[in-house]
């Protein structure tokens, strides 16, 4: 259901202020969403003054700098730092993206960093994505073939292979799904852009023999048709993919048979 306001325990409070100690003249304020599960308090926004003269270019570098030099208690996910693993997906400056590929120069004014929207927060910038992973599992994201090919390769024409371009690149960072208002209000039933893009990736694969079943399974008022083409997903995707188009392609396949 649509619930515009945050629940009582999620209201964000003003937090601590960490004043710059380096005496640098090139200072930026960074506001970060904090929540400590052991404190029993509401989430808060901590403000850090960061010396930008000695900070590399991306938002993740900024976070690392804060964690290393100012406040080691801050928690966030990160791994590859090259936009491949999708761990550091978060909301920066009001838009979802990967902290490791987003230059902080692109952000004007204070830098606001929140966890991915409308998730149960585990700690600070870490949201709980288990619902999304369960939904991903429900579309059975693996190749289904009946006959054994005698250990040979399962061949595909260049044309058929090109249909997977713009789909296989998805890293499941959840930037798109958590940017989608429909997914906010109906996240328990609506599959969301990330999972639907994956569903389409297997539907359109020429080697897969389960296309009809897959389409039947996804053709549901709530699972698929909660997409109202708001297009926040395509706007958010850090890999430049187009989940909205993939969803529309599924709808079109269902309509035209």
């Amino acid at each position: 259901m649509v619930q515009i306001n945050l629940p009582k325990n999620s209201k964000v409070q003003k937090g601590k202020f960490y004043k710059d100690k380096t005496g640098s003249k090139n200072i930026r304020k960074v506001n970060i969403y904090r929540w400590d599960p052991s404190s029993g308090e509401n989430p808060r926004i901590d403000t850090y003054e960061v010396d930008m003269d000695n900070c590399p270019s991306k938002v993740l570098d900024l976070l690392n700098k804060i964690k290393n030099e100012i406040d080691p208690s801050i928690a966030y996910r990160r791994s590859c730092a090259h936009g491949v693993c999708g761990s550091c997906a978060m909301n920066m400056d009001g838009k979802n993206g990967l902290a490791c590929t987003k230059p902080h120069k692109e952000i004007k004014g204070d830098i606001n960093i929140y966890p991915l929207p409308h998730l149960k927060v585990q700690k600070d910038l870490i949201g709980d994505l288990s619902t999304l992973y369960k939904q991903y599992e429900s579309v059975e994201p693996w190749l289904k073939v009946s006959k054994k090919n005698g250990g040979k390769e399962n061949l595909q024409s260049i044309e058929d292979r090109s249909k997977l371009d713009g789909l296989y690149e998805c890293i499941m960072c959840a930037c798109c799904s958590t940017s989608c208002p429909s997914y906010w209000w109906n996240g328990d039933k609506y599959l969301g852009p990330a999972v639907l893009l994956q569903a389409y990736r297997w539907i359109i694969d020429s080697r897969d023999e389960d296309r009809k079943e897959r389409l039947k399974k996804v053709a549901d008022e709530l699972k698929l048709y909660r997409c109202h083409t708001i297009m926040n997903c395509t706007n958010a995707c850090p890999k430049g993919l187009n989940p909205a188009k993939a969803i529309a392609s599924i709808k079109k396949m269902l309509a035209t048979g």
Partner: protein
Amino acid sequence: MRENNPLSPHIQIYNWHISSLVSICHRITGIINIIIITFICLWLTFLLLGSSNYELIQKFLLTYFGKFIIIGTIWSFSFQILSEIRHLFWDMGLGFELKTANITGLLVIFGSFIATIAIFILGRGLI
């Protein structure tokens, strides 16, 4: 996962994009249009009931508030129709590229205002 984990902020912090703005306006104008159509039906019923009833509505529509309602109605329908045309193209699988979607979104927004002015002036000329 414990029950007391907070929900991360969503609509409070998320930026508006052209397409999300057009999408929410599409819904709002849709609801407004249903209400307006109901009133237009009532208006027609009033016509059948005699001239005094007609004059009552006529007087209301000539007030500033009445004119606001008329112009609002024209805008609401213009917006809904233009946005619906955009949706029809989407249903054919066209216009999903970010750049195209932004341009068509802007066309809907500005087009609806231009259409409102054009229809209002044209309508006045006809009357």
